[in-house]
């Protein structure tokens, strides 16, 4: 029993790190552009399929493949922003962008079905099947490697946001877009690059998801996006630290409940969200909404 609990906590923290990475992308996009990217879930799955193709066809190592898939997903993000998001203006912008990204998700999902079919795929490598013995349970190496990579990437994002000139313009845009524009920040460029970065992290998230989730198909995006949304709401929309804490918290709760009943784990996941929202509608680290200009 003790080993099961250790294992559940280790799982929760390690997988939580990977979810944190995907959720940071989502919350960053929300913070800067004020939009919710519903396509984030299916983009993760797209990232997983890209990794799958690279490793199955070209026999490229999963982690080496990221050198190709991350820039590719960055380009996908910039293109989606350029083609659809950029054009939307006006009062209904938030609702519109939500619907547009939902439509993009549908199209990507349909294309993935056309190419790969509905059967479940899995990413494989030696470190996915081999495990390390820890505290009385076995943990596949991929969990450790993936968590390490997620920590490095989140730290990198943090450094980018808080230690560079670009990061300063991103944060300025998050605080007040009009003011940022007035002091000469190219808000459109900041928005495009942020959307690109937010989508690029899904390449890593997708590779990890594909290797640890025990199989994925084009439909898996719905489950993912609803979890990611729950995480960023819980953390407080637009808060990067909040997304980290919420991801680890939610995934740990979920994996602990899984010991008792796998069927209920996902329901507890959402119930936790609702309970937190009843007590604190802005989430753990959210600020009160600023009145619209």
């Amino acid at each position: 029993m003790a080993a099961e609990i250790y294992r559940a906590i280790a799982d929760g923290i390690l997988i939580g790190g990977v979810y944190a990475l995907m959720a940071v992308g989502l919350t960053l996009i929300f913070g800067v552009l004020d939009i919710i990217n519903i396509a984030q879930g299916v983009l993760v799955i797209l990232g997983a399929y890209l990794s799958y193709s690279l490793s199955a066809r070209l026999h490229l190592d999963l982690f080496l493949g990221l050198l190709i898939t991350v820039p590719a997903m960055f380009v996908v993000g910039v293109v989606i922003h350029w083609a659809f998001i950029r054009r939307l203006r006006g009062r209904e912008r938030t609702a519109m962008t939500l619907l547009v990204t939902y439509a993009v998700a549908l199209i990507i999902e349909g294309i993935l079905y056309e190419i790969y079919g509905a059967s479940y795929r899995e990413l494989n490598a030696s470190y996915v099947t081999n495990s390390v013995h820890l505290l009385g349970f076995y943990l596949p190496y991929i969990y450790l490697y993936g968590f390490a990579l997620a920590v490095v990437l989140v730290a990198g994002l943090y450094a980018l946001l808080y230690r560079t000139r670009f990061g300063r313009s991103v944060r300025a845009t998050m605080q007040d877009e009009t003011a940022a524009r007035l002091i000469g920040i190219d808000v459109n460029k900041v928005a495009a690059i942020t959307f690109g970065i937010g989508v690029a992290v899904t390449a890593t998230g997708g590779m990890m998801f594909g290797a640890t989730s025990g199989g994925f198909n084009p439909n898996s995006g719905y489950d993912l996006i609803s979890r990611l949304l729950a995480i960023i709401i819980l953390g407080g929309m637009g808060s990067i630290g909040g997304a980290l804490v919420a991801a680890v918290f939610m995934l740990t709760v979920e994996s602990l409940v899984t010991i008792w009943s796998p069927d209920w784990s996902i329901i507890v996941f959402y119930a936790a969200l609702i309970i937190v929202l009843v007590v604190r509608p802005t989430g753990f680290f959210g600020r009160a909404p600023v009145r619209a200009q």
Partner: protein
Amino acid sequence: MTLNSKALKLAGLAVLAAVAIAFPYVYSSPVDTNYGVYAMIFVTVASAWNIFSGFSGYISLGQAVFFGTGAYTVGIAARDWHVTGTGVFLLLPLAAVSGAVMAVPFGLIALRVRRHTFIVITIAVFFIFQLMAADFSFTGGTMGLPAPFLPWQAATFNNPFYFMALGAAAVTITLAWWIRRSKFGLQLRAIKDDEDRALGLGVRTMRVKLSAFTLSAFITGFMGGVWFLYLTQVLPSSGYDPLFDLTIVLMAFLGGVGTIAGPVIGALLIEPGRLYLNTQFTNGYLSEILLGALFLLIVLFVPRGIVPTGGEWIRKFRSRGRAAIEPEGRGAAWTAEARGRQGTSDGRRLEAARRRESE
């Protein structure tokens, strides 16, 4: 408005009603009436969505919660109470009530937060319900539930459903029209425009939002029951279907959010089109891609929908060659509204309504 144009409108409505009633007699094959039944179901649920989301600006992507709950309520009640034959139709009010009962706690939680978060919570609640339907045993798990057998002839099986859905559509459209003209509708639109200001003007925003949400859930739950009896089965993935949520929002956006005719026109265009595509492509993925592409085109090129955009074109056409000054009075207010500036005029009207009341 002159008497003539009023009479013209009434005559137009009468013609539309006559066409709708004559439809299953003219196109009497089950294949054709099937289109009619689905179109009417979606006209109703899209209009119900519009009553809450279109008027208040809170986009709900969780209407399938009520639709699925209505369907499951009828299924579970019929199974446990051993209701058979046409008696199952007596369970439909129960489906509506179950939708409304779900909407109260759902709304009390979700309506505390502002728009962005609200949309996301509706999605999360939707997934909770889908998972619960699949995980619990009393819902039949992933196998779903069958509907009681109806001893009707296959040739005319669809007709009673068509008229039931048509009646529900007529009631819902009338209700939407009446709400839009009422003070309740004005309060909803004031919330859409500026909730803090509406609150400052004395609108009990939570009560207003929750009433509209519950009403829309009541109608959607009822239609879920009708749909279940028509399709004769419900699965977790078909009762609680994410595409259902998206499709009704798409219908409203195509026709024009917040207008009465918009969701109706959108549903009449999209639902038959979707059914037709499903018969053309067996795997269904291509129709999904097309639905997504259509959505993108609508949002990018006719973002306000057919009804407001069409209205503008007609006005431009009528006023060609004349001075570009809009007439004062009702027409001007309507134009401002069509341009998406109804905010200020709604706020003013609300203040005027309040002043009249206090006098």
